[in-house]
């Protein structure tokens, strides 16, 4: 009888700890809206590149990855593009990729831009902008630095100077 009572006590406390811990932990740590944040895994996407080939986030697993959201109508994006191209060229022999997800523009516009800036990294089209929403973008440009283990090292909002990129990419490659 006595040990039975103790067992019930322990079971109830354990239940409270697990369920209550989950509830409180959820309120404390999980992003309220499921949006990516530092340390979390970025949402999956499946998008077409300029040649009509499908690219998924999973394709980049195991590589250091920079996901850059951009549009030709965003001056900050245009500003940082040449430096991003430079960074890509510098590190492209390493397990390192840069993906530029365009913000809902059409092919002609994207192609002109790619030609104008000699963009050598992968450019993906996202005509209905759903990936942007999943990533919780508030302003452009926004760049996600994803470690080879698939977690986000850093999120940079706004145009990056070369030093901003360099610092983060070095860290990415070291991880």
């Amino acid at each position, binding site marked *: 009888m006595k040990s039975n*009572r*103790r067992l*019930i*006590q*322990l079971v*109830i*406390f354990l239940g*409270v700890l697990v*369920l*209550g811990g*989950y*509830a*409180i932990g*959820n*309120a*404390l740590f999980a992003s*309220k809206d*499921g949006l990516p944040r530092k340390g979390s895994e970025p949402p999956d996407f*499946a*998008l*077409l590149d300029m040649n*009509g*080939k*499908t690219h998924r986030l999973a394709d980049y697993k195991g590589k250091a990855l920079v996901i850059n959201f951009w*549009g*030709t*109508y965003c*001056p900050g994006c245009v500003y940082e593009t040449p430096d991003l191209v430079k960074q890509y060229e510098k590190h492209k022999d390493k397990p390192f990729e840069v993906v530029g997800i365009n*913000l*809902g*523009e*059409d*092919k*002609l*516009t994207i192609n*002109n831009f790619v030609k104008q800036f000699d963009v050598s990294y992968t450019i993906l089209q996202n005509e*209905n902008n*759903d990936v942007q*929403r*999943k990533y919780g973008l*508030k302003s452009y440009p926004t760049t996600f630095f994803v470690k080879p283990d698939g977690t986000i090292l850093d999120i940079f909002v706004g145009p990056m100077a070369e030093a901003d990129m360099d610092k983060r990419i070095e860290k990415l490659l070291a991880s």
Partner: protein
Amino acid sequence: MLTFENTKCECGHQNPVGTVLCESCGNPLDVEEAASEAPLEMRYDGIARRSQKANPSPIDRVWNFFSSVKVAVRLIVITLIASIVGTIFTQENAFISFDPSTYYEERYGWIGKWYYKLGLSNTYESWWFIGLLVMIGTSLVICSLDRVLPLYRALNKQQIRKHLTFLTRQKTVYASSVEGAPEAWTASMAEQLKRRHYRVHQDGDALLAEKYRFSRWGPYINHIGLIVFLLAVLLRSLPGWAMDTYITVPEGETVQIPETNLYVKNEKFTIDYYKDDELPESLKGTARAKLYETKAVLYECEADCDDPSKQPQLKEVKRHSIIVNDPLSYQGIKAYQFGYDDTPKLKSVNPVLIDHKTGKTYGPFKLEMRNPELTYALGPYTLELRQTYMDFALDSEGKPTTKSKEPNAPAFVFVLKGPDLAEGGEPYMYFPKQNDKARFSQDVINGELAKRFEIKVPSMEGVEFAGVVTSLNIRSDRAMPYIWVGAGISMFGLLLGSYWHHRRIWLRIDGGRVTIGAHTNKNNYGMRAEVASALRGLGIVVEPKSLDNGRNKS
């Protein structure tokens, strides 16, 4: 109460620590209770709560904390106050997109600033609010368990012959001398009580009659319901269990509902206004909406859902005209009419190419704003599209750029090739909108070429606008059935506890003197009336009021 040491009753029963009334005979054991003259404290039949122990361990102390009703009431009051505070300003989750770090201060001043800083703008999702709910849930379980098990045991093996003090200190008491054999008198009383639907247990010249015992379980059933309710609320935080999102669907287009394999098509959006003769005097001449309606079709994707290189294969599953408060509903997912945008957006134009020299007109050709064709053959001439700007502007360096991807001020750069033109063609810039053409001086940009050629839309018929965009609020809540079940169980327990009351009557005859004590938790008037009516059945006429134990303060 916990310091009381001698727990053995004079009847010989060994009671647990904290017992107020002897579990067996009902004699008051608690020192204060024994010394008092007032009606007995009958809560939980005077039994000790499970957790009341002489030497509590740390786990017991935590258990005791949550076992206290006083603590439970405090937790509930704190939660209520927090809930009230959370209603003062609009909560963050009521906005679709805004910046909370500046909104509250701008709107409400320093109070708003602190409201945001203290996290009150997100009260109901904050860790401390959830923590309070978890504590209330724990308290619910432990309080109930601590009381229901001993109570069940106490009610299950009730002593028929109770201590005389136990009877005389009930709220309804009758005492008088009786004639004849005590056992026969008791039996005839039992008969009277049975007629009044009591279950009667007789032990010689002692009797216990009771009815509606089940109502004692009402509060505990109610608590089980509340626990189910709380667990269901917890379920909602699991991914995929609750969704509250917005989609915008232009007329004629099909849009995927995020994180589902469902697609919504907006076949037609209608907004209807009241006519002037339908409006009261004061509102005449104002635009008052009568109807917002989206003719929607819901599709389920069957294959190629996640491959952008293929078109998803859709199967129609539901068709519904969504109006306000009449959502499209499919497998727990509901699409509510939320808003619309009917600002005209250019979709395509059908311009012609005019050769001013010869006076000849070529075309028209269809120029789409989104993903236009790259070459157009017009008689001997060819137009090659080189660049588009949907929202044309000049940047700080004077270079052409676009401000957004919306066709607010579209501009197209063509290369015109054909007879009498330079090898490789000559550039021609075209602004479909007349005011842009003037604003950005199209003819100046095109120079000499503008004198020879012109691209223009001959009539308004050549202009197509995109349909009205409807916005829908998509909601689903898979935890809802469990919430209803919890609420139902809770309500059932509440009904049991409030519409029936446990009534008990004890009787004993000692030396030709009968003593009757009766107890109920609610409606003592009814209890006394029932005892009086049973006595009347035996020919003893008493006023129900006279059964009121004089020491009853209430």
